[in-house]
């Protein structure tokens, strides 16, 4: 009976203070600060509450949201995928070249996705079979993809008239006011992004693969000794991130209606900052897809805010940096205050 009482004591102690999940705090903070930023923008410049603003926030950043989801998976395992930007480049170049050569769009799209799969697979092989570290493996595939893209063509390629990529970028006006700046508009790209987010959520929280991803993030060796399919899961992760990158490319290419070997330079960094801003630990183990989405949105309104503040040219990147810094520091402070360990 001592057993019982003793453990009763433990249990209560253990549960107390964990009534809600402390791992969510950074993400919650992200949401709050995002709203504050919007309010500030609206108060100062009066354009941040316009439907048009939200429309382009989502339409123009659908690709970033998809990339953020793609990046969340590797980062959750303590890995990273630097190749997403380059994969966007090569897939868009190939895709547009094909449509220019008269290949029907849906075939082109499939080929683009397959390319994404291939590069994801390559990364997976390098990481799992030749235990290269994800950072280096994907850095190499990044150079590789970018290189091949520019070998294929360095021109800016434009989608031919009446290609069926358009359906993705076709505006769907939900609210149509006389002034475009007050319209609420989305397009298929946005819908795809939403689907991707849902997919990410289900994968991470509703499948065993998802749980294994978190386990690997906690400790790869433990995960293996616990009899989890760590290797297979890692393959899946990089396959998925590669494929999603390709999907992001489809959406972006459709929007701009053209492709270029230089597209997507530095997007991996935007994606990573989005993920981290969203409260995911770069060392893996903690984080949420939805956080990454918020992160992407935050990352997206930092630039317009900076230019609206009329920051002098040379100072812009400093201010952008400072904003992200303030953000993560606030986040850190809240997390620390809410008393989680270390």
């Amino acid at each position, binding site marked *: 009976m001592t057993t019982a009482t003793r453990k009763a004591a433990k249990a209560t102690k253990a549960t107390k203070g964990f009534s809600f999940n402390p791992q969510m705090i950074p993400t919650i903070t992200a949401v709050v600060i995002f709203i504050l930023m919007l309010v500030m923008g609206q108060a100062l410049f009066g354009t941040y509450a316009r439907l048009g603003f939200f429309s*382009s926030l989502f339409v123009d950043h659908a690709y970033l949201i998809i990339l953020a989801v793609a990046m969340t998976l590797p980062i959750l395992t303590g890995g990273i995928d630097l190749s997403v930007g380059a994969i966007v480049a090569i897939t868009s170049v190939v895709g547009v070249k094909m449509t220019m050569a008269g290949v029907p769009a849906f075939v082109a799209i499939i080929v683009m996705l397959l390319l994404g799969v291939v590069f994801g697979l390559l990364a997976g092989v390098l990481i799992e079979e030749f235990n290269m570290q994800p950072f280096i493996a994907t850095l190499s595939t990044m150079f590789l993809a970018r290189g091949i893209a520019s070998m294929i063509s360095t021109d800016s390629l434009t989608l031919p008239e009446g290609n069926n990529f358009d359906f993705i970028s076709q505006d769907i006006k939900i609210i149509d006011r006389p002034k475009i700046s007050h319209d609420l508009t989305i397009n298929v790209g946005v819908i795809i992004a939403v689907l991707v987010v849902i997919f990410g959520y289900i994968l991470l929280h509703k499948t065993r693969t998802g749980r294994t991803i978190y386990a690997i993030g906690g400790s790869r060796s433990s995960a293996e000794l616990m009899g989890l399919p760590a290797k297979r899961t890692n393959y899946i992760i990089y396959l998925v991130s590669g494929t999603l990158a390709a999907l992001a490319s489809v959406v972006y290419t459709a929007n*701009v209606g053209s492709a270029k070997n*230089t597209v997507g330079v530095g997007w991996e960094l935007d994606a990573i900052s989005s993920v981290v801003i969203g409260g995911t630990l770069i060392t893996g183990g903690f984080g949420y897809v939805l956080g990454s989405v918020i992160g992407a949105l935050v990352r997206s309104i930092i630039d317009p805010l900076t230019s609206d503040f009329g920051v002098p*040219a040379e100072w812009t990147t400093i201010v952008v940096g400072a904003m992200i810094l303030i953000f993560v520091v606030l986040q850190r402070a809240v997390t620390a205050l809410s008393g989680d360990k270390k």
Partner: protein
Amino acid sequence: GSSNGDAADNGSSDSGKKTVGFVAVGPEGGFRSANEKDIQNAFKDAGFDLIYSPTSNSDQSKQIQAFNKFVNDEVDAIILSSTEDSGWDDSLKKAAEAEIPVFTVDRNVDVKDAEAKKAIVSHIGPSNEWCGQQAAEFLNEQYPDGANGIILEGIAGLSVVKDRQTGFDSKIASNQKVLESQSANWSTDEAKTVTAGLLDKYKSEGIKWIWAQNDEMALGAAQAVDAAGLKGQVTIIGNDGTEAALQAVADGDLAFDIEYNPIFGKETAQAVKDYLDGKDVEANIEIDSKTFTKEEAQAALDSGERQY
């Protein structure tokens, strides 16, 4: 729509002051900084309220986002200094629908969609092909019976690079032999390494001329040539007409420099002003640039009129 009221009045309050959105590339030194500074100042002087929005590592997506933001902000006009010549149709369509006039500067954008075309009022800027042609013609007369040379390209795939190359190819004589074209990514310091490498590689062939697609790279090349002890034996051509380059031309480190005139803020501001005041504006305002030989460079430096 656009509120009316004389843009010339220096209303510190936004009332009556017209706002112009400037979709820019960002201060990347050399031509870029000079050009964007000039535009910003010109519009300030003309009594506009200019919102400046640069991108980073010439990423078009950020430019598109900025552009669309300006449309939502209902600015009175948009200045577009694009990193890419394509991919603007959708955004321009939006601008057209919102009746916001767009002025493209430096790089012209090609638009397929008829709707979108409407948005563009006029293009202001110098011509890149012209620069390439000047370089080629100078070489042709320097080496009438041909010589070996190398080309230092900018970042692979930028349309500036392609335009200048096209111009060059259209005029360069067949007896001029291009041993190799290497990218030095616009960078002085990379150009030095690359040139040093090529000088070693083609010691036997002998490199007589180097065409660098911008001044930064030309200066780098000059240093490599100097270090290799070939100063004066290699004809180096730069492009942009920045002060440092002119100095180098005057000192004989470079043989020839072609200006890519960044100073057209005034013209741009004027065009915008005219349009908003209902006057009509030329569809293509070409800014003419100069070329500099040793003497011309010296003269230009002495005149002290160069703003960059």
